[in-house]
């Protein structure tokens, strides 16, 4: 191949092109360094972009899962405390009932015991209507109270669920019917029967004791379920926390620059740009004109 004829203008154009490209590369690296991001627009890396977008939505989703989980902790924690109190009240009620069944108890003592059972019953009904953020936690999805003043269950058995992980939901409520019962087998009726029997028919009290045990068992099994779900949420929370850290790490890997490397790259580009400048300064100066006298 013959050598192409070269003119001053060719040299100028070519030098300018090379300087431009060198400066452009320097600018790209500097943009990366100053924004701290490897991907500043979709075309920088389309595949990195889709990963970044997916991870970003993952971060947001997990934040929401964590919020949902802590809301679930609120519900289940309150249910746990409430059921603990209810269980303690049932212990006390059972002791009182045993005292009433004791042959040494006279009508006066039994009346006093009946009165105290009445107080415990009202306390239990208050517990059954416990509210979290203005919602009765044992009333299902009705929005009102779980039990009315006459001890009737007026809630429903609807589940209150929380999204806690992709495709995973946890029920954070217990139905009042399940833990306190309703109607003839409701805790309110058990207490009324016991009070009635204390006052009128002490011989029937052994049946009430059995009923109290049923009520107690229901509360305890409710407690166990709440505990299990609480534990499940704790596990999910730990897992989500770890996932969140991993996702953020991945996002950082995809989006963020390696600062040391980028600084080095900028330095290298800068050097090569300067080298190009100084070489250019030498090449474009002389022509034969300078040497003709």
């Amino acid at each position, binding site marked *: 191949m013959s050598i*192409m*004829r*070269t*003119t*001053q*203008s*060719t040299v100028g*154009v*070519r030098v300018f*092109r090379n300087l431009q490209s060198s400066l452009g590369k320097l600018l790209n690296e500097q943009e990366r360094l100053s924004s701290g*991001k490897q*991907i500043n*627009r*979709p*075309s*920088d*890396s*389309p*595949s990195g*972009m*889709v990963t*970044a*977008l*997916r991870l*970003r*939505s993952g971060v*947001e*989703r997990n*934040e*929401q899962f964590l*919020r*949902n989980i802590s*809301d679930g902790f609120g519900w289940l924690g309150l249910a746990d405390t409430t059921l603990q109190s209810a269980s303690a009240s049932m212990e006390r009620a059972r002791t009182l009932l045993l005292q009433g069944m004791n042959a040494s108890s006279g009508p006066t003592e039994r009346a006093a015991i009946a009165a105290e059972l009445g107080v415990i019953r009202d306390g239990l009904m208050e517990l059954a209507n416990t509210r979290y*953020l*203005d*919602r009765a936690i044992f009333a*299902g*999805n*009705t*929005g009102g109270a779980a039990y009315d003043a006459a001890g009737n269950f007026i*809630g*429903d058995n*609807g*589940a*209150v*669920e*929380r*999204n806690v992980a*992709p*495709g995973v*939901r946890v029920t954070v409520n217990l139905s009042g019917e399940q833990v306190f019962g309703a109607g003839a087998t409701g805790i309110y009726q058990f207490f009324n029967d016991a009070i009635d029997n204390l006052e009128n028919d002490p011989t029937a009290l052994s049946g009430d004791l059995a009923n109290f045990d049923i009520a107690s068992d229901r509360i305890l099994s409710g407690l166990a379920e709440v505990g299990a779900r609480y534990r499940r949420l704790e596990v999910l929370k730990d897992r989500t926390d770890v996932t969140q850290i991993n996702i953020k790490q991945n996002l950082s890997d995809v*989006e963020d620059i390696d600062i040391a490397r980028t600084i080095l790259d900028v330095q290298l580009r800068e050097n090569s740009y300067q080298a190009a400048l100084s070489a250019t300064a030498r090449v474009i100066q002389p*022509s*034969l*004109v300078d040497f*003709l006298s």
Partner: protein
Amino acid sequence: MSSFGGLNIALSALLTQQRALEITGHNVSNAQTEGYSRQRVEQAALSGPSVPALHMKYTGAGTGVKVSDILRARNAFLEARSYAEDGAYGQLNTIRTALSRIELVFGEPSDRGIQNQLSEFWSAWDDVANSPADAAARSQLVQRAVTLSDTLKKASGDIANLREDAIAEVRTKIDEVNGAVANIAKLNEAIQNATVAGLEHNDLIDQRDLLVSKLSGLVNVTARAGENGMLDVYTDGGPLVRGVRGETLTLDASEPRIAIRWSKDGYPSNQSAGVIGGLMTTINDTYPRYLNGLDNVANAIRDRVNEIHGLTSPGTMPLAVQDLSGVGALSFTYSVNGAAPTTVNLAGADWSGVGGAVALQTALTNAINNPAITVSVTGGNGEPMRIKVSGTDPTASVTLGADGANPAYGLMFGNRSLTSTISAVDQDQSAAASLEFRVRLNSGAWSTVSVTPDDWSGAGGAAALQTALNAALPAGVTAVVSGGNGSPMHIAYQADNPADTLEVGEIGTHPNQDPGYALFLSGVPLGEDRIGGRAFFTGSGATDLTVTAEIAADPSRIAATAPGRGPTDGGAALLLAQLGEDPRGPDSVYRSYIVELGAETQTINRRVEIQGASLAAVNQAREAEAGVNLDEEMVNMVVHQQAYHAAARFMTTIDEALEQLILRTGLVGR
């Protein structure tokens, strides 16, 4: 040869070298002139007379030198290539600019991008699910939905504006083309005159070539030499310049797809290269494609949200829930002829794609495993799926029921459910004997609603049915009918007062009351407003995606609750929040859109780079051919200068010789 012939030889040399020096000076002066081609003096020796004449004393020596021609160093082949490369570069670079501008519209990835707003929108549904009665959570949801729709609207508006800008630019560029064409035609005329008169016109040709070269950056250009040194210039669809006549182009923006036409006859000139070709590509393809893509994103958001929020009808399985692979078992009960219900359990699977309906039908048949029951599944793969579970014996009565957490099932028309769908085939009711059902408000007395059967299948059928229903419905209850004319028709009954509870029940024997039509869901009930099915978003694309006015005005109308559940249930909201996790959800539609944009921009960036390199190569080759090298000119200058000196010396010598002859000869003996 005459005695003074030598002087003439010297004179011709002096004149020729002077001319050559002038040309060198011209070259040096124009070393940096755009479009200038270096010129070269062609010299030729003047020979003696070729025909002998009387008294001729030809000695055999030549008679000097002359300038035979002044040549332009120009390679026509390289010119043509440079036009093509220039045109291709102009087109690609224009498209690249357009795509980079679209990229800037989205500003992804960032905390302000649409992806982030989508994520926040889904999160807001979870917040509503956490406290469905909380007005603040509902308002926040509406706010986020409005922000999302506004951002889509703005992005769409920005791209539309970019397109308008491009149209304005193409107008200016066409003016430039028309101006250049007129000038080329004028130069052609001047060149023709100069050629005929035998005058020097190299610089006129340079000017013309420069104009053609500029033109080649704007439109697709081919040039052909014409008569008398003129140049004909062609573009897509005909000649721009032919001899001294130039044609003009105009922009026709009267239709959505804009066109460039010839002013003379209105025929289109589809520009395939140059800046104008690139602009036309962006106006008619790139921008509309990305506007359309954005509409698809908006429609995906609208459809998926509405599907769950309100317009979903019992009897069909919405697209959103056809993939149940992630949610565990389906569960429902059936009983034949009033026997004890049997529970059917079916593992969740993805029935959303091609063949999904068949797969679901097989799976259901196997799960039921009872020859007395026939299952048919239609639709799917982009259409809502319809499931029918009925007795094999037509006289058998089959009752379907819910089991445990799966209470969602419904019937097709006018009974039990607040929303119903009439299939496309059943929309012609004109042959039916009666169409009756009953409604009641707040558990009061039932009112019978009787509608005269009619054909509601064609255009306007939905409106006619809505009118007929509303005329028959008691005060306080409204029917909303949508769809029809080829698609399943959707009927929603709603109580006018949100606080009222509405029940719809069946009487009569309409075939659509066949209780065999049932809907299966995976324990996640359909979103249904306490009032009745209502769309969350309205609009037909990114430009007008809007939160439904009723919901925007009163966030308590957001349907967070699943049908049959208490007022503080968040079943529908939970389902909506999960749309953000859906691998085929609106998020993924948006992500594919952005990735397509990124990939296309990246590709065009590379193509521009490659095209830029080949353009530079051609330009360099052209410059190598036509450019002025100062060293070369200096050498020429010195050579011509020396030749001039020598010629002058030759003249002096002849002069001295003649002097000797004239002044000093014949003086012998004086």
